[in-house]
């Protein structure tokens, strides 16, 4: 399986500059690169292709099959050339446009019947401009979506920003996306490359473990973006959880920018990590062991315009369904 890394970030946040740097690293020598548009920063790479602007968004009422036609075509083309021995690559990097929502590309990798057999999610890397990001997060939902979807964040233009502004921005980033690792463009190139693969999602420490509780932070009152975490002391029924989460995402996935959870599943010794972006849920990871700290199920949501208390009540009501018996 070839990992596909999605490089995203708001307009002018330094995506192409970073990409240009990453491509000089020996670890990226066999990367194929797909870009949406040729920007001001020139890229010189032997495996560079342009995603055609003929956007075919196949959205026929069925979220699971949303496929970005142009991304699929570009990847199929690469795969075709690889199969014919015309080119070889061990990774694909897709640079999105500055206003793009990363979700449709991730969903394409998951849903496309051919692509999903050859390519896997290689993580979302989001560039965040240390000078302008604080304002963008306040004013633009796209910026929040890109940060929320990130597995790795690279802070750019840190040399142009004040230290206290960078510290404030880092605090905002950890509220929007508590689990993304934050690097800066001042870090060595090979260090950034070595962090490209997402690995198992990490979750922030649990602050409290007594019974069920919830807490949330408002990031922006105007946009109504909220990070919200649920903690449950009891073990979770996997089947009921699946029913609840699929229904929640079916109805409200557009407004759930990101969710991550580590669950103590009834009947299982090891925890299960579940994470996703909007309507997309990645394959659940069966972790080898519990991380340090209490063995408590917890989920983090980044939401827009949904009431965390209602989600808590819904989760509690659905999870109380204990009457289902296993049919042998």
């Amino acid at each position, binding site marked *: 399986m070839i990992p596909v890394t999605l490089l995203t970030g708001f307009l002018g946040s330094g995506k192409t500059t970073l990409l240009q740097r990453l491509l000089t690293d020996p670890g990226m020598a066999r990367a194929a690169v797909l870009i949406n548009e040729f920007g001001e920063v020139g890229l010189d790479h032997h495996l560079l292709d342009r995603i055609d602007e003929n956007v075919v968004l*196949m959205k*026929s*009422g*069925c*979220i*699971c*099959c949303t*496929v970005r036609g142009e991304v699929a075509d570009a990847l199929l083309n690469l795969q075709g050339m690889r199969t014919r021995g015309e080119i070889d690559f061990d990774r694909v990097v897709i640079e999105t446009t500055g206003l793009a929502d990363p979700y449709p590309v991730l969903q394409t990798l998951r*849903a*496309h*019947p051919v692509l*999903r057999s050859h390519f896997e999610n290689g993580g979302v890397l989001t560039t965040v401009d240390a000078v302008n990001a604080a304002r963008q997060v306040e004013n633009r939902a796209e910026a929040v979506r890109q940060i929320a979807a990130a597995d790795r964040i690279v802070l750019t233009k840190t040399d142009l920003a004040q230290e206290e502004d960078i510290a404030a921005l880092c605090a905002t980033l950890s509220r929007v996306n508590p689990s993304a690792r934050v690097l800066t463009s001042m870090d060595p190139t090979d260090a950034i490359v070595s962090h490209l693969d997402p690995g198992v999602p990490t979750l922030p420490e649990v602050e409290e473990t007594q019974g069920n509780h919830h807490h949330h932070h408002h990031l922006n009152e105007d946009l109504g973006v909220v990070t919200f975490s649920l903690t449950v002391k009891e073990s979770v029924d*996997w*089947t*009921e959880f*699946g*029913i*609840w989460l*699929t*229904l*929640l995402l*079916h*109805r*409200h996935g557009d407004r759930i920018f990101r969710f991550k959870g580590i669950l103590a*599943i009834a009947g*299982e010794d090891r925890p*299960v990590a*579940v994470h*996703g972006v909007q309507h997309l*849920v*990645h*394959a*659940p*990871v*069966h972790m080898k062991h519990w991380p340090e700290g209490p063995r408590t199920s917890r989920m983090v949501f980044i939401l827009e315009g*949904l*009431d965390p208390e*209602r*989600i808590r*009540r*819904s989760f*509690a*009501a*659905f999870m*109380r*369904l204990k*009457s*289902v018996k*296993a*049919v*042998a």
Partner: protein
Amino acid sequence: MCSLCGILGCDDHWTHAVDRPGVFTRNTDRRSRRVESARRVAAANRVLSFRRVTLAEWQGTSYVVSNATGASSVFESFSHLWPEAEALSGREIDPLDDAVIGWVGSQ
């Protein structure tokens, strides 16, 4: 094949993912698959009963939703459950709706 959009083989749903290293799934052997599938249908029916819709598995390969008037719809991918059920009942099923929360909590 997806009955809505024609994409082939799209029932690799995260709730019962294809068994592979590192992935949590109960889709491991015939017995676990059947047990989990039966539990999933039962769990869905507790929610669907709010709209008087019922779900059944059909020959282990597809699903059928039916409403109180006998109308039914067949689909292959579990991810189509909620759109199909809502289409059949003519109304949405919102897990954040107080009425749905109350109904599910009382079942």
